[in-house]
């Protein structure tokens, strides 16, 4: 038996190809939207993976350091090191800001790294070019997606940092590339005031007799010094000694240190469940709308194509074609249209994904799910056309 659907498609291939391409672009957008969500989740996980921590210790009762602001004294890590099960603890600061790059600016997350070596928590685990930070000040390691090159200078607040190393896939949960600088510099950058503000503050302090009493000139100096230094960090990254349970150590930190500690699972829950949850719902809404539009397009095209063939369907029924043969013809056309659209969509998404400013992760399982969804949509979309075709009276071929 010849394929009636195939012959019809070949006969009106132009209509099919154009419709398939249009549908494919829609499917491509759908796949890309799913990829955007996957990319956000992957970025969030990459942030946690690359920090190298088992526990995140933050200000009490906050969801810091990524989902909320958090501020803890920079000597807290010493107290953490005394707890059983804590192998290492390192301070870290995070500051999202725009930095200039040539004539444009780029949004980055500036990470302040504690002194140490690449095995210290918070440090980028690997470089793709250059070296790690070795000096105490004004050196930076940048994620390649920031656009900075080795030897370039990054201006953060009032200071310039020389890019000495480049890394990859070190991004914030929002997908912003990271720039790593020494912790002291980062602490200063977080709280550094402009010159006018410093001058005004100094004037007010010196004019205050309580802070600048006659006969005690060193008091004012001490007050001024405390006002211009920052002794806080956003979090301490803790690694566990082998054999210790993360939840137990986190519980000890909460109890004895009056700080909040999150395990890897809890932090992932905060990032994915809270920080990007609304974005995920938004994307889900888009996916539903796109799926509905795709279904409507397939249904409309298949219905129109069937409507164009009413007389032929009447003749086919009159000469003894079974309903299932006619239904199969319409269904096969709908599936062919959907599969054409799927192939076009997959190719479009694959080539378009790298062009997006943020990470778009196209996962094979999402592709499989999209294929299943396309098949289901095509089957459902062909129902109305099949119902119409089956209602066609063979007598229409005779007239009268």
């Amino acid at each position, binding site marked *: 038996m*010849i394929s009636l659907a195939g012959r019809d498609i070949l006969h009106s291939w132009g209509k099919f190809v154009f419709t398939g391409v249009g549908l494919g672009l829609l499917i491509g957008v759908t796949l890309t939207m799913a990829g955007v969500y996957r990319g956000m989740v992957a970025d969030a996980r990459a942030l946690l993976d690359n920090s190298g921590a088992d526990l995140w210790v933050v200000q009490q009762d906050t969801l810091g350091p990524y989902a909320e602001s958090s501020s803890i004294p920079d000597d807290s890590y010493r107290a953490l090191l005394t707890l059983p099960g804590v192998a290492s603890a390192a301070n870290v600061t995070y500051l999202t800001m725009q930095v200039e790059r040539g004539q444009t600016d780029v949004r980055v997350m500036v990470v302040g790294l504690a002194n140490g070596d690449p095995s210290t928590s918070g440090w980028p685990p690997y470089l793709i070019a250059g070296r790690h930070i070795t000096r105490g000040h004004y050196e930076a390691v940048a994620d390649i997606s920031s656009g900075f090159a080795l030897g370039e200078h990054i201006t953060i607040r009032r200071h310039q940092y020389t890019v000495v190393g480049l890394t990859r896939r070190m991004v914030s949960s929002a997908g912003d590339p990271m720039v790593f600088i020494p912790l002291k510099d980062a602490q200063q950058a977080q709280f550094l005031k402009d010159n006018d503000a410093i001058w005004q503050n100094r004037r007010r302090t010196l004019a205050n007799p309580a802070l600048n009493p006659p006969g005690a000139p060193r008091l004012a100096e001490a007050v001024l010094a405390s006002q211009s230094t920052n002794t806080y960090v956003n979090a301490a990254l803790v690694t566990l000694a082998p054999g210790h349970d993360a939840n137990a150590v986190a519980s000890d930190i909460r109890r004895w240190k009056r700080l909040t500690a999150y395990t890897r699972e809890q932090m992932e829950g905060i990032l994915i469940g809270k920080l990007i949850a609304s974005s995920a719902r938004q994307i889900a809404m888009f996916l539903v709308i796109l799926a509905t539009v795709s279904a409507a397009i397939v249904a409309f095209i298949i219905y129109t194509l069937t409507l164009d063939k009413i007389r032929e369907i009447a003749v*086919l029924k009159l000469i*003894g074609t*079974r309903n299932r043969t006619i239904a199969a013809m319409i269904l096969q056309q709908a599936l062919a249209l959907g599969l054409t659209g799927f192939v076009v969509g997959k190719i479009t998404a694959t080539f378009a994904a790298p062009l997006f400013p943020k990470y778009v992760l196209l996962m094979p399982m999402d592709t499989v799910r999209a294929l299943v969804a396309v098949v289901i949509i095509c089957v459902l979309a062909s129902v109305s056309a099949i119902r119409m075709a089956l209602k066609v009276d063979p007598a229409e071929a*005779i007239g009268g």
Partner: protein
Amino acid sequence: MTGTGIRIEGLRKRYGKGSTAVDALKQVDMAVAPGEVVGLIGPSGSGKSTLLKCLGAIIEPSGGRMVLGDQVIYDNGWQINDLRDLRRDKIGFVFQAPYLIPFLDVLDNVALLPMLAGVRNREARRRARALLDALDVGHRAAAMPSQLSGGEQQRVAIARGLINRPPVILADEPTAPLDSERALTVIRILNDMAKSQNTAIIVVTHDEKIIPTFKRLYHIRDGITREEMGDGRLP
């Protein structure tokens, strides 16, 4: 008349019920022998199309009897289960317009019927090609219907009606869109095919050009048929 092509006795068809009922067919008696071509003529509203639909097993008569070959297909009720198979295997249709499937080439338009009946594609196409050759359109086998002239299309439609060698062919105004010469050619083809394939052919027409070509005619008026002899002059 020798043998049985199709025989119809006291066929009736009533549309509606009660006071609004209309008797489209009141008393239809016909018999067409294998190899014979008869005309069925009548004015508009006389019941021609209703009769054709009853004969084609598209609508169910209200009463009477129909015998196709040796098989009683209707006797105050259908005597067979699958009317679709009956239409496919036992009845050929030729329409006023050819109604060829536009997305199939000429060969497959004709071969489709045996394929639907389960004949293998190669065998179906072989039979279709032979029939198209016999109807002098074999050279257009690879063409699409839209590339054919009206006469060629009608010959392909005749080939489609004949391909399953049905005992009866119902032709509904097959010459209406054709000029005199082509109309006579179609009638000549139908006569030749009726003889060569031993098929009974009923031609519904009110085409004055071809009425004289029938040896036997059935007039239908107000749902009642009347048989009369025709001229049988086929130039």
